[in-house]
Each structure stands twice: as structure tokens, then as C-alpha cells.
């Protein structure tokens, strides 16, 4: 009985971490039932990933900015601006598509440097600088496009948004072999990494996680990856953008939790003065965060443009709000210092699932907005309640 109770207590301590996961799964199950199985159909899962990829990319950059105690309202306009530049470069300046991608990421970095300079070194609040950026880059988009749309784009470029990895089964096999291979590989890496870090923790005798919980978590995550692998493999295989997204998530999650730079970001968001007096170059870290946000926004812009096969002056409208909502649903704190990359990704997926599921159900856009708003409020309220319950600040 006491063992059971201590297990329960342990689990309730983990509630904040697993709560999001549970919410995500509950939403999946809800839509799976209400849409009579369409939600988890292979084609829908594939579309879900592809169509939300740019929001997820933005959310990765946004969560870092928010952890540092800032905000970026300009990303939607930057998405449009970079999309426009890619169109101008490829169709008007006849720059090869791969060079255009590199140049566009460079444009994103310049945008980030511009905003980062005013925020970090000039000391203007990020809210104002990026609000100004939201207007300026929207304006530059319209100037670059001369209020026209640009289309079409070369196929190689479009693959970034809507392409798939080559089908090694020649399109005839029941499951696409490359996808299966990648999925199994990812699962193996997950298990090996999990066991290795658990061993290292035991070696330093800092392990506190019960063994059963460790196995359960590992089995669950592994199972989830294999399920997605199965679904993707039985459709057209792995979307290229999923590979991009997977790499970004793994790398940035590692940076935020284990790199010196990531620690500095959390320290700045938690207490700026204490961080500065601890020798952290707070201005440089802030500057780099915005440069990074600019590059990721550029990447999101390229993916979005490639997907639509269109550079449009109105593109990316409201993306910043979706990205910010994803970050807060993912458990970040408005005051900074708290948040995770995986949380932001799950938050983004929740928003994506709501959009997708409600569209399938034929819910009108007015109700979609209403429900998304309530979900955002509910998620943050749950977080605040949880913190208060645990006697936190």
C-alpha cells in the first residue's frame, strides 16, 4: 500500500511533464472517435505533419525567445518577407534554387540581427521592436512583390515543403522501406540513449527515477514513434520537412537542456540581474537568440512558400500568434525562465490537431477560433493551478 502511494506521489510530481502528453493523446483519441477514424488515417497524419511544420519551426525559435523573457511578434511578417525574397530570387534574378535557400536563410539572419541589435544593445523592449518589425517586414514584402503573387516555383524547391524522401520500395511495397528503416533507427537511438544516460546517472548516483517508470516512458515514446512510422510508411513515406523538423527538435532540445548557451538563456529569463552579475554576456545571448529566431522564421517562410508553390504578400498572417500560443500551451512562463522545446512542439501539435480535427468535422472557422482561444486559456490556467498547488511561486 505504501509502495502504491509513493508511486502515486511520484507520478503526481511528474504531472506537469506528462500532463501535456496526456492532453495530446486525449485530443487524438477524441478526434479519432468523432471523425470515425479519419484522424489517424495515414494520409491525414502525413498532411498534419506537413501542414503544421512551419508553425512548429517557428515555435522552436519562439520558445527560446520566450524563455529569455522576450517575445517576437514579427515572425509572421518575416515568413512572408523571406517567401517573397525567395520568389524574387528564383523567378526574377534567376538564382539557382539551392543558392536561393541559403541566401534566404541569410536574409533571416540579417532580420534577426537588425531586431536583436535594437533589443539587446539599444535596450528597446522586444515587444515594441518586433511590433515595429511586424509592420516593416510586411511593408518590405509588399514592396518586394510589388503587391503581386509569384508562382510557380521549381520542383526541387517545392520538395522542401511538400516532398517525400524517395520510395525505396518502388511504390509497390505494403510499407515504404526507407521510412520503416528510419523509424526503427530512431526508436533504437532513443532506447540506447535512454539506457546510456540512465547508466551515467547511476554511476554518479544521482538517479531518482523508478525503474518501472523509466521502462514505461521509454516503451511509450518508442511505441509512439513506431506507430507514426507505420502510418507514414503505409502512405507515401517520410515527408522531407519531417526530417528537417526532427533534426531541429532534437538539436534545439539538447541545446536548451544541456548546452552552456541554453543554460545562459534560462538564467537570463529567470533573473536578468543575477545572470549579468554571474558573468553571463546577457546582451550577446539576447542578440544571438533573435538571430536564431530570424533564421528559423526564414526556414519556416521557405517551407511555407514551397508548400503553397506561391509567394504571396499576405502570407504568414497571424503565424506569430499560433507560434506564441503553441509555446504557452507547451508550459512556458510569460515571465521567462521556464519552458521547453519539446513542450512547444507538443503545444504546436495540439493546435494543429485542433485545426485539423475541427476542419474534418466541418466546424466553422468562427467556432474554431473560439475553441482554440479557450484551449489556450485552459492550458495556461491548468499550469498556473498546478504551480499554486505545489506551493510554487
Amino acid at each position, binding site marked *: 500500500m505504501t509502495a502504491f502511494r509513493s508511486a502515486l506521489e511520484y507520478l503526481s510530481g511528474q504531472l506537469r511533464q506528462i500532463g501535456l502528453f496526456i492532453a495530446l493523446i486525449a485530443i487524438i483519441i477524441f478526434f479519432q472517435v468523432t471523425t470515425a477514424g479519419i484522424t489517424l488515417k495515414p494520409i491525414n497524419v502525413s498532411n498534419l505533419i506537413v501542414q503544421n511544420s512551419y508553425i512548429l519551426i517557428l515555435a522552436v525559435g519562439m520558445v527560446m525567445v520566450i524563455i529569455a523573457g522576450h517575445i517576437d511578434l514579427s515572425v509572421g511578417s518575416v515568413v512572408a518577407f523571406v517567401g517573397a525574397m525567395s520568389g524574387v530570387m528564383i523567378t526574377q534574378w534567376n538564382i539557382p534554387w539551392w543558392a536561393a535557400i541559403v541566401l534566404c536563410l541569410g536574409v533571416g539572419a540579417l532580420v534577426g540581427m537588425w531586431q536583436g541589435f535594437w533589443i539587446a544593445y539599444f535596450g528597446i523592449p522586444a515587444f515594441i521592436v518586433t511590433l515595429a518589425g511586424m509592420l516593416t517586414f510586411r511593408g518590405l514584402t509588399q514592396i518586394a512583390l510589388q503587391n503581386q503573387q509569384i508562382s510557380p516555383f521549381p520542383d526541387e524547391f517545392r520538395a522542401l515543403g511538400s516532398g517525400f524522401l524517395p520510395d525505396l520500395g518502388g511504390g509497390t511495397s505494403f510499407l515504404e522501406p526507407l521510412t520503416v528503416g528510419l523509424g526503427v533507427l530512431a526508436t533504437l537511438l532513443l532506447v540506447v540513449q535512454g539506457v546510456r544516460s540512465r547508466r551515467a546517472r547511476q554511476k554518479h548516483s544521482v538517479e531518482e527515477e523508478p525503474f518501472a517508470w523509466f521502462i514505461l516512458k521509454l516503451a511509450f515514446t518508442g511505441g509512439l514513434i513506431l506507430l507514426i512510422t507505420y502510418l507514414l510508411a503505409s502512405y507515401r513515406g517520410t515527408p522531407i520537412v519531417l526530417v528537417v523538423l526532427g533534426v531541429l527538435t532534437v538539436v534545439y532540445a539538447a541545446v536548451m537542456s544541456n548546452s552552456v548557451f541554453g543554460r545562459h538563456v534560462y*538564467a537570463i529569463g529567470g533573473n536578468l540581474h543575477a545572470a549579468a*552579475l554571474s*558573468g553571463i554576456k546577457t546582451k550577446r545571448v539576447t542578440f544571438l537568440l533573435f538571430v536564431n529566431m530570424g533564421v528559423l522564421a526564414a526556414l519556416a517562410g521557405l517551407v511555407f512558400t514551397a508548400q503553397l508553390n506561391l509567394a504571396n504578400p499576405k502570407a504568414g498572417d497571424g503565424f506569430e500568434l499560433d507560434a506564441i500560443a503553441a509555446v504557452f500551451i507547451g508550459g512556458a512562463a510569460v515571465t521567462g525562465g521556464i519552458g521547453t522545446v519539446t513542450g512547444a512542439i507538443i503545444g504546436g501539435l495540439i493546435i494543429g490537431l485542433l485545426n485539423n480535427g475541427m476542419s474534418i468535422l466541418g466546424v466553422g472557422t468562427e467556432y474554431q477560433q473560439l475553441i482554440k482561444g479557450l484551449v489556450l486559456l485552459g492550458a495556461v490556467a491548468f499550469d498556473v493551478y498546478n504551480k499554486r498547488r505545489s506551493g*510554487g511561486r
Partner: protein
Amino acid sequence: MRSITKTFPGVKALQDVSLTVKRGHIHAICGENGAGKSTLMKVLSGVYPTGTYDGEIAFENEVVQFKSINDSEASGVVIIHQELALSPYLSIAENIFLGNEQQTNGWIDWNKTNLEASKLLARVGLRDSPITKVKDIGVGKQQLVEIAKALSKEVKLLILDEPTAALNDEDSAHLLDLMKHLRGQGITSIMISHKLNEIKAVADEVTIIRDGKLIETLDMRTDDISEERIIRGMVGRDLGSRYPDHTPRIGEELLRVEDWNVYHPLDHQRKVVKDANITVRAGEIVGIAGLMGAGRTELAMSVFGHSYGYNISGRVYKNGTLIKTNTVSNAIKHGLAYATEDRKQYGLNLIEDIKRNISLVALQKIAKGGWVDSNREAVVAENYRKSMNIKAPSVDAITGKLSGGNQQKVVLSKWMFSDPDVLILDEPTRGIDVGAKYEIYGIINRLADDGKGVIVISSELPELIGICDRIYTIFEGRITADVARGQATAEYLMQHMTQEQETKQP
């Protein structure tokens, strides 16, 4: 108050506490941090409404049930919290009548507001105009504004939670006088305080609380109660001495600051540090004594990475070589460390756990190629938790939930992990209870024994005299004396802290 018991989830903060305060008395309450003093006062003043605790409260011989602060204030019980609750951009008068506006039909009567405010200010001995903004007056005066605000509510029982914690000696003395003066007008006061000399000076009775239980109430007027007697009640044991014994082993000069000049960051004409010269040798504990605003913190912070001030000039030598300390990271690289006077605002990341706070300054030591080894981090932090006796269930505990003493130990651990040669500790024991203070002194001695130079800035003269090998006095930005341990008496130091000497020290 009879048989008050208050529990928080998992903790019994107060256990069967009964307290009687006589009309027209100043009643002091003391105890270590976390003993339950503030909780008891919050119960009394309705911050914790009736029903959330057991026991009953009788005020003027009637059982009362305060459901909120409004209830208790209506009965004449006013609490002034440790962190002052004034709005900085409003005027003194507006603050005094905040929530109790002098109005006719919903419109504020400014003449009445300011007139009544100046009457109240006269009663507390504050000569500033009532239209001065609160942000423009010092903490000492802000405390007086709080009391004026209490008086405006026809206070009968005034509760002061560590009223002098942030005040310098002069302001403290004024405040204590005011309390005596109010006692003469029939106002009863309850004062929570760590400062035993103040309790001795003004209190009629003192109640000691330890671990949520009432230990004893002493009559200060009839019995001859010594400070040691009170301390014994607070910690439950004899401390023997308040300062651990220490035999210094002083070596070569480590740090020398020459001709240091600093101007105020906003008022560029005003010099806040003037031609300061200080040295620290290995194994030496050097004190800096000065009144608040004398330039102690400004001197330390400007040396440490130019973290304060404008147009800073002067030279810093480390082991005889000129070094640059123009940024914090340069200062750290040259082996300097600075633990701030305000732990919560400038020292710690309160929403982060112990281990990440400790590792922050010297992350490179546990990182390879920019990646932190979080296992080594946990081990390092655990070692400090044990060696520094940080009272927390584990190094994953959030620092914001620790007591002041334990927070300070985390700050010290953080700087010790960066392995500095010279540590500047600004008010290392402010707001810390007697037992933890003793431990901090022990840590300071250990640092000196390891051959480090330690500079201690403190407002408490007995503390400096008790632990330092040498003490500089600073007055209006100028170093006025360099006093060896043998010569240091409170009177001698105070003399140099309050007047500039004719002969300048080398």
C-alpha cells in the same frame, strides 16, 4: 491569541501558540527564520482569514474573527510587512490614503488629502512634502510613510515585521524613537525583529518562538535580560560566542585598488566613490564599514566588472599586476567574486533549482565543448549541499522556496565553485537568523584559511568587529580610516563613518 495552530500542506507552521499583548506596550517577537513569527502575525492581522487556522483571537477583551485585512484594520489592527507595500510613482499623500481616499462623491479632495497627509507626516517626524513621489525618498522615510498610513486608519495595534531590516543605523534609531513616542500616545506595537539591541532598547516584553512553538515571554523591564539570554531561547542552546574563533594566517597582497573614482550612473556630476584605495592580502578578512549610501556597494560593484557607475577611473592590481575588470566576465576570469547584498533580486534565479544556480558562474568547469555534463553538475551541487549544510531535500529544490540563510549558502556555493581568489561579500548575513549567521561566519573563515582574500561589507558593526582582521571605514564615497582588528571598536568606527577625517589615509 489563544492556542493558535496553523498548518500549511505538509508543515505545521504554528502549534498551539498563545500570546498576550498588553495595551500600550511594545511587544517584540523574535525567533529564527522560519520559526513562525510572520505566520503568527498574518493570522493576527487577518491575512490568513478566520477558519484557516485553529484557536481564537481576542482583541480588547472581545473575540474577533477577521475575515480579511479590511476587517482587522476596521478594528484598528494594522500590519506593516517586511516588503513595503507602497506604490513608487504615487505621492506620499496618495500612498497614505490608498484604498481610503479622501473623497467627496467619488472625486478626490486633493486639498484635504494633502493637508491630512502633512498632519500625519508631522506625527511621524517626516518633513518631506506630501506631494513628493515615494520613489524619490529613501527606504527609511518610506517606512515612516507606512506608519503614517497606519495612523490614518486610527491604528490601535501596530504590527511591524522587521521594520529596521533595510534601514541604516540613523533611520533605525529614528524609527525606534517614533515607536516609543507612539507608545506614549497609547498605541500598542508588536515588532518582529532580529536585532537584539533594538529589542533591548524599546521592547517592554519579548516573546520567543522556535519551530512554531511559543518558548517563553520575557519581561524586559523587571528582569535583567541580556542579548545572550534571548539568543539562547531562540536557538535552544548556548552559542558560546556569536563569532567563531579564528586565527588568521595572512600572506602576500592579492588585490589592490588604487585611486578609484566612480560617478553616479544617472547624475553624472555626482561622485559616489572618491579616490578610494584598498588592499586585500591572502588569508585576510577585510571589512568595509559605512552607512547606507556611503558608497560601499558602489565601490564593490564598480570594481566587479563596472557593474555600477559612470566614468569609472582607477587601477586594479592582482598579485601586483595591473588587470582589467571592465566586464563581469573579465573580473571573474581574474579571480574576483561578488555576492550581492540583495540575494533575491541580484543573486539567485529563484525559479531555478539549487544545482543550476550553483553551476551558473563556472559552467565551463563541468562542460565539454559547450555541452554541460548534468551528472557532474548534480554531484558538484550535492557536495556543496553537504559541505555548506544547505537545508533542502535535494539539489533539485527550487531556491525560491529556501529560507534566507540557505539561499545565502547557495550564493556562496556558486561563487566558491568558480574558485575565486578574492571574494567580495555584500551584507552576507542580512535577514538571516542567528544560527545560520554563525555558519556563514565559519564559511568566511574557511575561505580565508584557504588563502583567499575576503572583503565583507556590512551594516552591522559588531559583525565586522567580530570577524574582520582589518576594517576600512567609508564616508560619502571616501575611505576615511583603515582600522586594525585590535583598535576596532564600534565607537571608533562610527566616528569615522560619520565624519571625514582631516588626514587622508594612504
